[in-house]
């Protein structure tokens, strides 16, 4: 392959402009029941060497987004539109062989569950060297030496022995380290990490995240960290995009998002994180209801049915993504949190005893009559 020149691991900034530009990107699934709008008009940019967090509850489209951006959704019923440019190269509509040339070398992915993302009947060594030998055309002994180095760099003790082992002989954390080593093998410029710690023990989670962060810095690699856990992205990303029902509802530099939240959904997510200073057995704040049916998303704001701030306008007119005061901070809301308009809206809803508003203030899901609809987020966070 022509890519064999692209040999080394450090992805130096080669050309001008952002690495990844996603513009009005849509991924729809044509099903018998209708068109499922899993990703519906997402725009993103990612600079080289930066980390973007994509946060959302189950079913918000974050996994579909990352896989679809890479072009990994091969089912026949997938309809992709809009534009994804990696290093200026358009990926939407690219041929399978064009994409294949990018996979592994320019972009790679770490998957959620290391139990299923490694081939059970292939030795670790072979799974790592496969990409090296195929993409970089390394001879067998060089590939093995490189694999050894990779395993070492992802913190696997006794790497020489691991090369000869099968996935089932490793623990979950080890396996995830191996999948990271495989993803990093050919020195990608862009790494997607799709909930890389969800299937792992809490104590291992931090290690894996630290490892990803360290590798990302050492290799000057851009990373997209997909997660449902705001705590995961808090200290490790440059920017966070919050997804809801296939759209980005708020996007901001990490610090801004936590200090200056505008979108009620983001606020609700933040509130639902358990806090250390609270007494034990404090009920978690939940977001009542459930994410909308992506076959027939609400005509107005997609979060309106669950939103404590929702007004009549929210149910009819979809809010556009607008700029906040801080540069790079965008949100989708008619009555943003932290503004007088938002405050008035909440008070109006409280005065009318709207259940979503009361639940948001008291934190009592029973009062809101929403118990039967404890959302996915409540369980996830």
């Amino acid at each position: 392959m022509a890519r064999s020149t692209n040999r080394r691991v450090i992805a130096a900034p080669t050309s001008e402009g952002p690495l990844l530009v996603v513009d009005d990107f849509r991924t729809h699934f044509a099903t018998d029941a209708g068109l499922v709008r899993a990703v519906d008009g997402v725009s993103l940019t990612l600079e080289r060497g930066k980390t973007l967090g994509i946060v959302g509850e189950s079913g918000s489209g974050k996994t579909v987004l990352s896989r679809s951006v890479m072009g990994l959704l091969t089912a026949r019923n997938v309809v992709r539109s809009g534009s994804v440019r990696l290093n200026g190269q358009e990926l939407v509509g690219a041929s399978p062989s064009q994409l294949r040339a990018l996979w592994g070398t320019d972009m790679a992915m770490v998957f959620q569950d290391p139990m299923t993302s490694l081939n059970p009947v292939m030795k670790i060594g072979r799974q790592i060297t496969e990409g090296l030998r195929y993409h970089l055309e390394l001879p067998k002994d060089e590939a093995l030496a490189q694999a050894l180095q990779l395993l070492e760099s992802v913190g696997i003790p006794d790497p020489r022995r691991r090369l000869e082992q099968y996935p089932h002989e490793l623990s979950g954390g080890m396996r995830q380290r191996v999948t990271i080593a495989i993803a990093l093998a050919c020195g990608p410029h862009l790494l997607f990490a799709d909930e890389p710690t969800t299937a792992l023990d809490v104590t291992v989670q931090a290690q894996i995240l630290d490892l990803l962060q360290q590798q990302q810095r050492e290799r000057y690699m851009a990373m997209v960290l997909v997660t449902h856990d705001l705590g995961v992205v808090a200290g490790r990303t440059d920017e966070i995009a919050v997804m809801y029902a296939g759209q980005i509802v708020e996007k901001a530099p990490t610090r801004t998002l936590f200090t200056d939240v505008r979108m009620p959904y983001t606020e609700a997510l933040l509130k639902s994180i358990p806090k250390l200073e609270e007494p034990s057995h404090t009920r978690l704040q939940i977001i009542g209801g459930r994410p909308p049916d992506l076959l027939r998303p609400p005509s107005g704001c997609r979060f309106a049915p669950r939103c404590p701030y929702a007004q009549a306008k929210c149910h009819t007119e979809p809010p556009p993504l607008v700029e906040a005061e801080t540069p790079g901070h965008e949100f989708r809301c008619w009555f943003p949190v932290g503004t007088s308009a938002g405050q008035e809206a909440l008070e109006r809803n409280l005065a009318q005893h709207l259940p979503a508003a009361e639940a948001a203030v008291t934190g009592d899901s029973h009062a809101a009559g929403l118990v039967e609809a404890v959302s996915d987020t409540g369980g996830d966070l």
Partner: protein
Amino acid sequence: MTDVLPVPEVTGAAAAEPHEPRRKSNLGVAGWLAAIWLLVVSAAALLAPVLPLDDPRITDFAVPNNASPGTAGHLLGTDNNGFDIFSRIIWGGRVSLIVAFAVLLFGMTVGGLIGLLAGFFRGKLETALMSIVDILLAFPSLVLLIALVSFLGPELRNVVLGICIVSIPAFARISRATTLTFSQREFVVAARAAGAGNGRILVREILPNVILPLLAFGLLVVAIAIVAEGSLAFLGLTSTETISWGGMINSGRRPLQEDNVAHVAMIPAVVMFLTVLAVNFLGDRFRAAFDVKDTAL
């Protein structure tokens, strides 16, 4: 069962790596007997030309026809033509062995490949391939076999070919089902994300996972294939030139009916029964060991 309780060993190294107990040889006594029986039968059949056996096609006029087992020079006696039964059993085993290997080589390869392609690529290819398989499956196999053999001629080659063709649908279905489950697995997406093409994914990622259940199932099909050949031979549909267990049972019918001599039909029947039982038994053990559920992780 004192070895059920794990010895609590909490040194650092042991805690870091989950140590799975080595899978015990789960053949059991019956399994070992079955394996030994098959080994003996196959070895004898393979070595038939060099073993000091009586010529299976020469009548021994020194003893009466249908001589009972133990008659001088004839361990298992002679049949109604005065042929040595022991020698014919061993030579007949060659036919069963040929059928078994042909089914594994040809039926499993073709059927497995059809299933692999259908299960991986889906769509129109799957519809086309699986309809052929279903049509083949809808035919009663013995009727199809009889038709094939009467049309092509009773030579062993045609019989084996027929049995292989009849075995294809079963392999195709198993292979397709296994491929379907493995194609959905994340490591296939992971391989694709690492830049592997369809061919590589099929050969390197899916095939190694499909081949174990397929092989285990193959042994069960071998048992059926041996019986099928025996049935054809018993019905007199295969060439009488070929010595086979089914044909021996067939030729033992007349002694049984007219002379009340059972051993001529009984001995090949018992040998065939034991062989098929052994193959079935081992196949079942292997299937349990390589079950898709077991290889899932």
